[in-house]
């Protein structure tokens, strides 16, 4: 009996990788099929005014369409973020400008990009669905890319001096330096920011898949448009179906993509000693066991890397002898700079032309609406802080509580607030509250998690010696908060508040203006202004309100958050 059992377990060991390979193969085939299907739709003729089905049976296909859109947007974001971050980090001349541009772009809400992107894409591909699809992808891209670019830039800047010197002394070519130093060092930041970005993508998915632009009504089949249609029609059953499908997809992606990515990124942690509690992922463990994948890597990636590195080494050796080609480089830089300047100049002229048609009253109303939204953002942040600070500190101090609360909070945070919004609105209407309060609630739903997670991280990072000091000297509860806890979590709190504030501003465009039960619900605010201007195709107002919002967000960042940040870094930084 025992021998038989043993033999069976060995057989299991043997067949296991084979099964694994078969699974990997099937997954690859499935992805290929999906790409073909999506490609068929995208390259097909324009389906004007497509009806979005509200039947649950349409959901799997819609989910696929949405995931593909987000994946394409994500790949674009990654490429752009790495290129932009790389140039900004290594070109001292353009660095300041590039960072300022990034700062401004980050503060512009998705919908403000919409008309320009959509009209351009539809003009490029007038007969194919591709134009609209690309437009939607670019919209998702604009919601994902900026923080990734910032992250890559910051990682490049933070590479320890001696590591960089080692790569210089040992004469790494640019490719080897990129593959063995820069990319690995930036990986953890990129992975975490990718998660934040994709979460942001889900948040704006409804806005990116279904919108009205003047007289044209764009509807792309997908999860976002499904939810939007369900909400517009007030179909509660469909809302719940769509919501569950979205949550299922998000959980699936978390298990199949993000957990493995985090566990894999662990190897890129810049630490001297191995940490005891390294994140794990069952998917990654399985993938690592697959002989097919490792063979594939051996046969494709390794030789490619060798070939490219050897080429770059030879090129480097040649260049070391004669530093030629610098004239060509200068010319290229001048051309690019001139093109950028011309484009910017034309943009300014066009914008000025647009703005001339706006009356003084409209300007005043825009400024007032900005004030209203500003207040809502403040209230949302205040409410979020009031509950998340004590909760976060409690969770951070108690490992037992953290084990239960953290996964729950993560699931809650991963559900995009916009998807919940129809449900919330239904409840609000039943209670009798308006969108004024409702929009604050939506901002809160979308942004409180940033503060909560940062506070937890901060509370965990307070050294236990501090608690012991407080214990020994019998600090009162108030003293404990004033001298240990608040200063301890301060830098983390600020990080959370900055992210939350940016998120709240962005959320205002979907929170203050909503198509619901066949009507438009809206409240007075800058977000509503932008959304309605998009809907009605009023480009002048859209431009004006976008400029006001970008100016406000950037000024708040510069005048409020940056000084606080500096204070946190100098005065409240815990150094070992």
């Amino acid at each position, binding site marked *: 009996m025992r021998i038989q059992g043993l033999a069976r377990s060995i057989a299991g060991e043997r067949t296991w990788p084979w099964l694994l390979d078969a699974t990997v193969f099937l997954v690859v085939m499935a992805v290929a099929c999906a790409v073909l299907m999506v490609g068929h739709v995208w390259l097909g003729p324009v389906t004007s005014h497509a009806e979005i089905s509200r039947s649950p049976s349409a959901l799997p296909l819609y989910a696929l369409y949405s995931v593909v859109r987000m994946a394409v947007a994500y790949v674009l974001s990654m490429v752009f973020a790495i290129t932009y971050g790389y140039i900004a980090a290594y070109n001292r001349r353009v660095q300041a400008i590039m960072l300022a541009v990034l700062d401004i772009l980050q503060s512009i809400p998705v919908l403000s990009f919409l008309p320009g992107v959509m009209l351009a894409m539809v003009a490029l591909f007038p007969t194919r669905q591709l134009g609209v699809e690309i437009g939607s992808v670019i919209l998702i891209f604009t919601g994902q890319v900026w923080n990734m670019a910032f992250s890559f830039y910051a990682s490049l800047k933070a590479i*320890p001096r*001696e*590591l960089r*010197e*080692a790569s*210089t*002394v*040992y*004469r*790494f*070519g640019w490719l*080897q330096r990129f593959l*063995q*130093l820069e990319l*690995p060092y930036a990986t953890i930041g990129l992975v975490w920011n990718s998660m934040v970005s994709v979460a942001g993508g889900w948040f704006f998915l409804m806005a990116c898949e279904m919108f009205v632009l003047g007289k044209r009504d764009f509807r792309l089949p997908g999860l976002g448009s499904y939810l939007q249609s369900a909400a517009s029609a007030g179909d509660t059953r469909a809302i719940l179906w769509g919501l569950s499908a979205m949550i299922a997809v998000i959980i699936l992606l978390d298990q199949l993509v993000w957990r493995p990515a985090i566990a894999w990124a662990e*190897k*890129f*942690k*810049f*630490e*001297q*000693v*191995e940490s005891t509690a390294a994140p794990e992922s069952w998917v990654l463990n399985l993938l690592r066991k697959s002989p097919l994948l490792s063979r594939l890597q051996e046969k494709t990636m390794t030789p490619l890397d*060798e070939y490219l*590195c*050897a080429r770059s*080494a*030879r090129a*480097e*050796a040649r260049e*070391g002898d004669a530093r030629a080609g610098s004239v060509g480089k200068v010319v290229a830089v001048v051309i690019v700079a001139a093109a950028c300047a011309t484009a910017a100049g034309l943009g300014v002229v066009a914008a000025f032309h647009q703005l001339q048609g706006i009356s003084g009253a409209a300007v005043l109303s825009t400024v007032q609406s900005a004030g209203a939204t500003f207040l809502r953002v403040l209230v949302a942040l205040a409410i979020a802080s009031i509950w998340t600070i004590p909760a976060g500190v409690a969770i951070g101090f108690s490992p037992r509580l953290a084990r239960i609360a953290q996964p729950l909070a993560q699931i809650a945070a991963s559900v995009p607030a916009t998807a919940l919004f129809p449900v919330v609105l239904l409840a609000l209407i039943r209670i009798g509250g308006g969108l004024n309060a409702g929009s604050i609630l939506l901002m809160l739903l979308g942004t409180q998690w940033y503060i909560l997670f940062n506070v937890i991280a901060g509370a965990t990072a307070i050294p236990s010696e501090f608690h012991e000091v407080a214990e020994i000297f019998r600090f009162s509860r108030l003293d404990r908060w004033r001298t240990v806890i608040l200063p301890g979590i301060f830098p983390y709190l600020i990080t959370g508040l900055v992210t939350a504030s940016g998120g709240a501003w962005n959320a205002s465009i979907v929170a203050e203006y909503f198509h619901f039960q066949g009507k438009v619900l809206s409240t007075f605010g800058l977000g509503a202004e932008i959304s309605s201007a998009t809907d009605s195709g009023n480009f002048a107002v859209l431009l004006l309100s976008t400029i006001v919002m970008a100016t406000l967000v950037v000024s708040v960042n510069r005048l409020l958050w940056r000084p606080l940040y500096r204070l946190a870094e100098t005065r409240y930084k815990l150094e070992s």
Partner: protein
Amino acid sequence: MAEPLIEARGVEKFYGQPGGNRVQVIAPLNLSVYPGEILALLGPSGSGKSTLLRILTGLARASAGEVLWHGQPVSGPVKNVSIVFQSFALFPWLTVLENVEAPLKAVGLDPAQRAKRATQMLDTVGLDGFESAYPKELSGGMKQRVGFARALVVEPEILFMDEPFSALDVLTAENLRNELLDLWEDQKMPTRTIFIVTHNIDEAVLLADRVVVLGKNPARIRTDFHVDLPRPRDHKSPRFTELVDYIYTVLTQPDAHPEVPAATPAKPRYPMLPHARPGGIAGLLEILADHNGREDVHKLADLLSFDVDDLLPIVEAAAMLGFAKVVEGDAEMTPEGRAFLDADILRKKELFRQAALERVPLLKQILTSLEAKGDRTLPDEFFEDLLDEHFSEDETKLQLETAVNWGRYAELFDHDARGERFFIPEETAAGSPV
């Protein structure tokens, strides 16, 4: 002296400040690094040692002055140097082997060659078996071994080290230092020049052939001297302590300019006896007489079909006794040597005795000790104890053996091999010339 490998000429570093003021970090200084030496650059923390290292390697630019590499001005990272970093600077996402292979990959070596050379170098630094480990799995000392392997695998012309041991605990650092010296002494290291930056005085005196001490605010060279201690060096030897004290004084008293202490007891109390027999010395003198009293040592060896290494002790012995001297590679007979050669056997013994007592401290010491004893005899152990702080155990035996040979010929004392004792025979004791 040989051509310098790297030469800093009037190199200085300063930072401009708003208002036209400038902060001088390094005052203009000249420094040359020669092939074959271990140079230690010492200085208080913040004195600009590491900056100077980075200027010499081309990683950083000097504000003024120039750096020459084999006589050519440097305008970028210098080829063919390595740096061992204080923080190890290993890539945590690469395995130990990949870390060591990385510089070879940069020069476009193919994978098989790379793996072979990297593995060999890991063996040399004592890390075989750790190829597939990640740096974070290793202790600090082992990480720095990887750092050494990575630095040495490119066979650099100069190995630069920036405080390579200061991130390690005391014992690990000591251990690694000694292993480094062993590699250096055994010539297992594919580099013949080391430039080490340190703030540890002991470390500098232990390792370096040459010590350069930097002063602070701005950095300038306070002293630059050769360490004349033979290896292996003993932390507790008086000369070691003397040099450490000297450097300590230079470092702690910015305004003092003490002299490098002269190597006072340059001769040990017992200069080593060359292992030659008196008969051999007499033979050498005879041959020299046949060549008009002077001949090239190598030619002599040829004439006698001797190995030079076998002839040299005889020449040295003759020189020690004052019967010959070595001039420009020639052995030349002295008047004392001529007198010794011309004398009859009894006179020969007398001349030898006089020369030995006058010029060979060990023989005199043995005689004095024996005479101080009532029974005029002492065990071997007594003299072994006397010598073993100067010589190794084997050498002590050889020294005593030679002393016995010479002492017998001079009829100063005799030795009882079975009883392992030295003694003065009755008849010579009476006629002792002392």
